[in-house]
């Protein structure tokens, strides 16, 4: 079930397009619901499709096309470490291994308590601050072992 807050936000998006093209809001709707629920389950995608009056497979096509839609449940905090060329030259391998060690998980895994998911990502466009990582919506740059610990300690 979609919450009334989400539906209100989706309605705003729908309003940006001609009335007969409700489906144009599909990407925004997926994003809005993901922000609220953390990820997009099959049932959620079906609910969104029903609300936009499109076949569920149509919404699913969009959700699977873009990598930033989460189709599986993740930890509360998604830690995404850039391992692309600039960050790699500035020691992203060490960043990854430090986080792995600290959290006791490998890249791609989620901690047993469901708090953290660790991932490798490609360039996030912050090479000037390499090595960097993204946690949720925040960028953290010029990472050191200490700063990583501080960042992780600061997460609830």
């Amino acid at each position, binding site marked *: 079930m979609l919450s009334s807050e989400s539906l209100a936000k989706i309605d705003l998006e729908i309003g940006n397009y001609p009335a007969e093209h409700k489906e144009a809001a599909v990407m925004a709707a997926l994003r809005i619901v993901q922000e609220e629920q953390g990820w997009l389950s*099959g049932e959620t995608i*079906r609910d969104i499709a029903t609300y936009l009056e499109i*076949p*569920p*497979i*149509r919404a*699913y*096509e969009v959700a*699977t*096309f873009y990598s930033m839609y989460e189709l599986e449940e993740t930890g509360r905090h998604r830690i995404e470490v850039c391992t692309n060329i600039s960050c790699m030259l500035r020691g992203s391998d060490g960043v990854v291994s430090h986080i792995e060690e600290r959290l006791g998980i490998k890249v791609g895994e989620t901690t047993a308590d469901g708090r953290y998911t660790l991932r490798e990502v490609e360039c996030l466009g912050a090479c000037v601050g390499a090595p960097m990582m993204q946690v949720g919506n925040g960028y953290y740059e010029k990472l050191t072992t200490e700063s990583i610990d501080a960042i992780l300690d600061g997460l609830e």
Partner: protein
Amino acid sequence: MAQIELNGQQLEVQDNQMLIQVADAAGVYIPRFCYHEKLSVSANCRMCLVEVEGAPKPLPACATPVTDGMKVKTRSAIARDAQQGTMEFLLINHPLDCPICDQGGECPLQDQAVSYGKDNSRYHEEKRAVSSPDIGPLVATAMTRCIHCTRCVRFGEELAGIMEMGAAGRGDHTSIGTYLGETIESELSGNMIDLCPVGALTSKPSRFSARSWELLSHNSIAPHDCLGSNLKVQTLRNKVIRVLSSENERINECWLSDRDRFSFEAISGNDRLMTPMVREQGRWRSVDWHGALEFAVEGLRRVIAKQGAESIGALISASSTLEEAYLCQKLIRGLGSHNVDHRLQQQDFRDDQLDQPPPGLGRSIASLESVKAALLVGSNIRKEQPLLGLRLRKAVLGGAEVASISALDYAFNFSLRFNQMDAPSAMPKKLAEVAAAVAKAKGVAVPEPVEQLLDSNGISGEADEIAEMLLKGGQDGAVILGFGALSHPRAATLKMLAHWISELTGASFGLLDRGNSAGATLAGSLPLHQQSESNPAGLNAKEMVREKLAGYLLFGVEPELDSLEQSAAQEAMVKADFVISINPYSSAGREYADVILPSAAFTETSGTHLNCEHQLQSFEGAVEPPGDARPGWKILRVMANMLDIDGFDFISSEEVLEEVKAGDRGTTGAQLPDWELIAGDKPRVIQDQRLESVNEISPYRLDSTLRRAESLQITRDNQLSKVSMSSPEMERLGIEENRAVVISGIGGRVSLPIISDQRVPAGCIHIPLATEEGQVLGGSSFVTLEID
């Protein structure tokens, strides 16, 4: 017009065409996978790349419009190189498992790899593998073979009207499938098998049983709906392996409904009767034809001697051929009886005495896609006549408006402008309102019986709007009656009102009945056919089962399932002194028949069907009937000869057809409406306490063949064959989902689980016909629930 040069050949071509269309018309083949003339252009497979002079790169012929002065080379070095390159990429992730693939031998990918590909592969890396979901009993998947042409996706979205397949993921993670692996429910899903240019989608019922080059192909005509779709029946060693569509733009285009495609399973199945059977002292015994026919003839003579010829009746399947229906009624009339009918699920026969033409669409099949307005009366056109539904959907996409008056909220694959869904007893009133609104607009007086059907509220605003829509449509309008109207307790009223509406508005008048009903009507398998003093009226199908005759001749029917009043029919058969069942299946009629004669199925006999355009289509048998089974017309001919009935010297089914044509007096003009006949109709009376029943028959239980087609029986469409009610109604009555409730109807009491079904109107209960469940309740107008 544009002047172009194609491989050095000068062509004068229409503007707004794509290069590939022009090339096809000129007989120049350009390889393709994603392009299909009936689907939108997606240009994603890149196989049709050709060289166009002046263009910097090869262009896809399917998406390049012709322009004046264009010079195109389809086999130049550049074109060939582009095609070979495309093919090399397509084959990178293709498993090349042709030896174990059902498509092998008729595979465009295989063929074009040979004709347009390189002779070797440079790819040594790992290939991807894709999981293959189970998408239902009809279509088998092997998605590793898929080349992402998206024909199946576009077919669902554009033609079938429900997008069930889609392309998930992207890049080399793309995979075609259904939403979370759901099964597909389209009534046209088999067409995706034909469209798939590789072995990703193949036919589940017929896969792994033959190679395409081993098959013999025979033209035939489909028996299950009123289109008479053209078929290719493909056989191996006298067995039907599969059925494909045979292109006919006027009728089925290149499509085929799942019903016509997969019903062959019953014919090639295990339930075929191989020898004639007679029952003596309650035991079944196989006998030879002579013995069986003598037994049958003696039985008939015994009944006639004891109770007279009028105590015999014949019930004929609407899926029979014209010739079979004709000989069957001729035989019965030759015996001196006039009780013959093929309309087993009709209950209102008040208009029988009118001289009506055979049921039909009232316009050409192809013209249905250009109507501007349509009024559906009790018609689930999408499931009842799938390919007509496809035509109407095209009309709607082109701007046509459709109104539906029905007793079930059908899931159409097009949008309705007006949906007047209400209890069955409200249908005459709703239609009368539209009729009165049309009359009012035309300044025509409303006849008394129509006036009577209206209640004190008069004409609703929506009825006025429907009338306006039809009047605006004029000759481009269509009024169509379906099963919900034909099986309605007031069918004659609905017919007359609809006919009157079509007369006043100029719209075509269509009665869409099942199978070869039109042929059976032309053949005279009606109790009032060419009535005269020497040929008095007989009993109709309903009277025949209600009056419990002494003898029955059943041709292709199982009355306990095919009749509307299933329980009365069952009782009549069991009580009868003598029952002859002529049908292809071993299990049919075992409970009550005295003799069962094995007849040929539709792929095994020659014959003719009359379609809804009133076009006669004859066909030959594709295979020999199994065992001692014989074509129906031959059985009837020999039986008539042994009964010493004159005029049965036919040596071919063509001769029978000639006689039907010669004897056809046509109709003396449309006699509808005859208001006298419905003068007794009262406005709707709301019944307290009781629930009104809505009859429906699953598209896959229409005749004995379909009921034995195993794969169709397990489709989602067939799962709706349950007693059901709307969930608010169930809540009101305190019934839990799937809980058994004692229901009393016309045939007695029965305890059945009830499921929720949003299509059913308030105060109503949905009764599935032709099922075991429906047996006690079938034909009830009202039922009572006993809830503790």
